């Protein structure tokens, strides 16, 4: 391969999007009036001047090969108007400016094997991260987990069965790049890191890894006459924060790196203020290629939510209304000492009242 000539980069930063925007959207920028939802995965937005734009949302594998990408572009060219965008959850949106173009577009998308849906009160596609495919610290895979779960949630994506939107997230280590969601499937390590002392000397910035530990469990130490580190295993909360700056602190383990499910991370300001996710289940085996145990818990929670929530209630709102004890009752998930907070400010998560449902 030729050596690149070393030219100065053009620091153009973030490009202007208006050049790539569907003309109806460009023309009506900031002038939309309302929208309607003709069918799952399809919205029509109506501008103040009466202009309309139909959006069709399709779920894809987030990690696209160029063939699939070109297939999507072919659909856009043939059935839509040659403009697309991606949503924050990596779904692709196609646009048409006339109703008669709609159904052919929807059919074409489905025809090519993509899922149409994810709008309104459906389960949106699961947001994900890098996993074993690319990251240097993952405890599990990301694309695989999501594929396995979305296969099971396919009907929930393509239909409006839920009381409100469901946003599911996954992350492949405890850093949690994937965010929080109505349901978050996260990695949970359960054993302190095993240190490969022979490597520490070369690879680790020892002071900074000591500083990185959230519970001050790491101390510099001499091991076999070499400067290394030691972990106070009683203090260690197995978070894995030491691993990125110091890979010899092996936190990942084929058995003890497990999954946990958290619920109720609802970050919109709709009705209530944004809320954090809360732990509901841990000790879930990290079980590729299909992670059936994790999926079963997710589905159980969704079933109970579908059954019990009122329209417009997100998962957190439903649980807050019925109370956490009842959540554990209806889902059949065990309540354990691990649910009781002991992090900073834990007291705010305790029941300092006699408000109890019997």
């Amino acid at each position: 391969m030729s050596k690149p000539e070393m030219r100065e980069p053009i620091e153009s930063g973030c490009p202007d999007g208006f050049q790539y925007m569907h003309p109806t959207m460009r023309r009506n920028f900031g002038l939309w009036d309302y929208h309607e939802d003709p069918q799952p995965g399809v919205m029509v937005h109506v501008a103040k001047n009466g202009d309309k734009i139909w959006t069709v949302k399709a779920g894809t594998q987030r990690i696209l090969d160029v063939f699939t990408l070109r297939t999507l572009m072919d659909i856009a060219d043939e059935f839509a108007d040659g403009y697309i965008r991606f949503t924050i959850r990596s779904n692709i949106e196609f646009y048409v400016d006339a109703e008669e173009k709609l159904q052919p577009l929807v059919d074409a998308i489905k025809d090519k094997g993509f899922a149409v849906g994810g709008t309104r009160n459906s389960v949106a596609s699961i947001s994900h991260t890098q996993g074993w495919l690319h990251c240097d610290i993952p405890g599990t895979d990301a694309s695989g987990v999501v594929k396995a779960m979305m296969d099971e949630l396919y009907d929930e994506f393509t239909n409006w069965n839920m009381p409100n939107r469901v946003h599911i997230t996954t992350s492949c280590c405890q850093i949690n790049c994937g965010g929080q969601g109505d349901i978050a499937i996260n990695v949970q390590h359960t054993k302190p890191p095993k240190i490969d002392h022979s490597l520490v000397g070369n690879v680790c910035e020892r002071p900074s890894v000591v500083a990185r530990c959230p519970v001050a469990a790491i101390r510099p130490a001499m091991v076999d006459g070499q400067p290394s580190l030691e972990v106070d295993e009683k203090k260690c909360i197995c978070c894995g924060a030491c691993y990125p700056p110091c890979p010899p602190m092996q936190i990942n383990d084929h058995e003890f790196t497990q999954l946990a499910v958290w619920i109720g991370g609802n970050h919109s300001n709709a009705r209530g203020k944004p809320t954090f996710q809360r732990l509901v289940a841990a000790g879930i085996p990290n079980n590729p290629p299909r992670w059936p145990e994790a999926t079963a818990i997710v589905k159980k929670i969704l079933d109970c939510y579908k059954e019990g929530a009122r329209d417009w209630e997100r998962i957190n709102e439903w649980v807050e209304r019925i109370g956490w004890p009842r959540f554990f009752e209806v889902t059949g998930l065990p309540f354990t000492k691990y649910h009781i907070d002991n992090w900073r400010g834990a007291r705010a998560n305790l029941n300092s009242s006699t408000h109890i449902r019997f």
Partner: protein
Amino acid sequence: MADIKKYPTPMLDVLEDGPWPSFISGFKNLRDNHPDERINNVINGLMGQLEHSYETKMGYWKGGTISVFGYGGGIIPRFSEVGDQFPESREFHTLRVQPTPGNYYTTDMMRKLADSWEKWGSGLQTFHGQTGNIMFIGADNDSFQHFFDEINDYGWDLGGAGPCVRTAMSCVGGARCEMSNCNEHAIHRHLVNSFTDDVHRPALPYKFKFKVSGCPNDCQNAIERADFAVIGTWRDHKKVDQDAWKAFVADKGVDYVMDNVISRCTSKSLALGEDNALVCDESNCVRSMHCMNVVPKAISPGDDKGVTILCGGKRTLKIGDLMGTVLIPFMKLETPEDYEAIVELAEEMVDFWAENGLEHERTGEMIERIGLVNYLEGIGIDPDPNMIAQPRNVSYVRTDGWDEAAEEWFNRKREEKAAS
């Protein structure tokens, strides 16, 4: 009445004005009209010093160590820092005396106490201090033992001061309140009287307070300020007298009822049904009292009564105010065994804290330091979802042992089911 040289009290005098009863008028009455010269003098000195405080905006008492024979606490000793200026009240100790649960007195007993106190002390007392003690304010070194002996003879004992179990408090409760769900009086006495040694001989890390309220209205502020708060509650359905309810609706009108009762229910579990009957989603009622506070004639607590126990409430020192948090969601208190069980729980709690609390550390602060779960394990209580407002929301937790914990939960659930 002695003819004494009165300290001038121009600032205090101002507090004789106004419609609210004046403590200064009371003081003056003692100073000027009490037959016992000792009292005239003590109050004169006290007023002199208090006026001095008002002028300089500073206090002038200091503490010390004093106690009746056989006890280590129960008295707050006070010595004046300006005793040379106001020698008459140079020693001015307060005896803390435990009242009955709910603070009941006959006039006879009151007069008896007044007689003893004016014989030995200053003639000033308070019913009651914020911890609930009768405070006999103003004894000197020579008299406090006499006064104690005298009232101790006819049934009164000192309360707590210092690092010890403190005097308890309980609401009027069953004696006169339709909201009551428990025998506040019995609970109060069972608890505190199981700890008389710990009340009288301060040897704990710090103080430990019991408070009992008969219902979630918590008229004793127990959750906010007791290490051990007992709150009456019920486990079955609340009781609705539909006739009384309908009469209420007819009287007040539907709008009033919607605005003040239905829409204000904490858990939105009330509705107006056919005929304006009250419809209750009992599975969702959180026992927040509001509906029955507004309509006591029609709505009352259920029949399956008991208590919720919370732990760790206290005020600011030294990590900030702490509310108590749920320890026992529900406990029956009917049989002697039930009462034994609550006392045992209290003993476990005091013992664990006595062993593990730091100096000057209250139960709530200790829990904050070690985490509720360690506390639960220390005193042998199983985790329960009613203990939490919500599960943890930060992923910094170590979950090895999850499977065992889950197993325990399922076993407990199975046992509960088998038992019922």
